[in-house]
């Protein structure tokens, strides 16, 4: 996957990853495991690879953690913070860090939409002109 860099800015501040989607005006905070997962996704790993690498890590519950990981990734996709990359990079799965696994949390905020959401996103149709709604 890759950052939806057409619309999204993501930057670490004081140990948190702050992602802003300027198309929707929504913004997000991630900490700890969520940042690890974010980085693994951007490095080209998929959910299955992450699960395989994290199985055995302290706190990783094979019965529940994979679904919660999948749900987290689904949220990132649904909020269009990341998009599937055309050609995923081939990186070897990361070894599980020493810290225990905690299910990832995506903190979501939408109270600054009036300031963050700039102009409406204009989609250009194939004929080169902004497309009228169907």
């Amino acid at each position, binding site marked *: 996957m890759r950052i939806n*860099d*057409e*619309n999204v*800015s*993501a*930057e*670490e*501040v*004081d140990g*948190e990853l*702050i992602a*802003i989607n*300027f198309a929707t005006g929504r*913004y997000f*905070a991630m900490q700890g495991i969520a940042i690890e997962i974010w980085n693994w996704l951007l490095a080209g790993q998929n959910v299955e690879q992450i699960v395989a690498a994290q199985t055995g890590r302290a706190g990783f519950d094979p019965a529940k953690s994979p679904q919660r990981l999948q749900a987290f990734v689904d949220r990132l996709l649904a909020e269009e913070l990341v998009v599937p990359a055309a050609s995923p990079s081939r990186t070897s799965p990361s070894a599980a860090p020493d810290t225990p696994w905690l299910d990832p949390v995506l*903190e979501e*905020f939408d*109270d*600054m939409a*009036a*300031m*963050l959401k*700039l*102009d*409406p*996103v*204009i*989609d*250009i149709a194939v*004929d*080169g*002109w*902004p497309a*009228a709604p169907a």
Partner: protein
Amino acid sequence: MRYTNPADLPLRSDAEQLDFFDAALAASENALKQVGAIDHDLLIAGKRVRLRFAGSAMARQTMCALEPLCAPIGGDPDVLLMVWDSASTGTVMPAPQLSNLCFSQRGDLWTFRSPRIRSAFHHWDYSLNLYDRERGIGMFWVQNAASLPSWTRAAPFRTLLHWFFADQGMQMVHGAAVGIAGDGVLICGPGGVGKSTTALTAVAQGMDFAGDDYVLLELTPGEHGGLQAHALYASAKVHPAEAGGFQSLGFDVAMPRSSDSAEKAVIYIGEKITRSLSIRAIVTPRFGSARETLFERYAAECVVAAASFPTRAQLPHCGAEAIAFIHRAASTVPYGRMVLGQAVEQVPGALRRLLRDPATVLPPDQSPPSTPLVSVIIPAFNAGAFIGEAIESILAQSHGAVEIIVVDDGSTDDTAAVAARHGGAVRVIRQANAGPAAARNRGLTDARGDFVAFLDADDLWPNHKIRAALLAFEDVPQAEVVLGHSQLFEIDKDNGKPIFVASPVDTFPWSIAAAMFRRSVFENVGPFDEDLRFGEDTDWFERAEHLRVNIRKIDDIGLLVRRHAANSTRGRTVQNIYPARLVHKRIVRQREARAPSSQRPMSDAHQ
């Protein structure tokens, strides 16, 4: 990030823009060949406007509003406008390969600023508008005539007519014009302040009607000259719920195609349209609480802003010349504010009284009051090249009680010396470089006025900025901040004069320097966050909104932003302007607010 500042995009060359126009012209001629040409001539303000439709699809949609202004076809037109759609002609309009960044809210195409070729794309009807000022040829194109919204059917080809008539020395203005026996009142202001209802009530009671939304102004010189308002459209727009009343009065009404759309109903005025009115007064309406409609004095600049701002916000390429025109217009007749009474049916009577003796009903504006004191703070870092102009734009304000505090933020140039040349009008404070937020905060500690405003050293204010803001505070005494719009400008390389770039609705909406503040609001919201080198203005407004500070947004220009190579935000994307640090601070504040008070930091818990 796609959100590069579009003002930073490189301009397309004049030759490229002419090539695009010629390609569009070839497509238009092909469309005419496919389905045949249908001509209609309009006579507006003595000018012959020829509409050349490709087939009947577009004519059916648009001619209802124009029919009463038609004249028999004849002679050479003053302008030729070609009108077509792709759906009925099977013809494609070539595209100049613009990125989505180039399509502005007002319609101007960023990067297309040829002095010869005018171009705009409107999102409200998905229309392309092109005009060659040398050849007097324009084009209006949409994908499908059947999908034209009601506002286009009520007021078609507005942008093309604006460009043509501006070249004839006339100015289209967002306003209504009604009257009696050829004399009229021009009613200007943004949407939703009662223009249409007033105009339609007047026409229903037998008054002359020359427009409810846009009219064309002409200033004729000489003893018998004056201000004329010419009709452009024999139509008006109302909320669908009000349309039935006009139907029963005999007007043709077109209801919106879908009841769940935001479209208005269109009332066709037909032959009852009055082609021209001699304007005897200009008013801007506001809603009052009394039963009867009254008139009151109002500052000339505010009347001009009420007329020019919505006009400039909607008409592509409409610049400072529109403001100057409306200024001249307002200098020829009495002007003021119309306080609309609850009894709508009595409004025409009030307009008749106004027209009988406009000079008595609307006496000239009194000289501006000398209080309250307004403190203006200029944070300045190496701004010697521009700060003199910034100070002069404050000294030129139509409000006299002003103190200017320049905070020299560790400049290594002659900033302080240039500021000090203005003598006792300016206090200069020096500090080691700490950023604009810290400099503004330093100025705040020295400010003595009940009101405070900030101006960056390279920007300017329009002359009426302070007066307009104070009048807005008077209108809404509970307001703690009045926030206007920013207008980009740059210096014309050829003549050294400032020219406006794009429209004030296409600029950053939260500029500290476009606002004016009650000084007391900083006790509530706190100072600017000195950690932030960019985005400190957004951060302050965000905190203010969170605290439910009463911010009154006004439709007026509160700031002129200079575009130059050294702009601190030039070349930056919104990624820089809304840094993650700003958003992170907001998140931390939210978490603190959510946490039980015992878990909050001591500083918060004691507040």
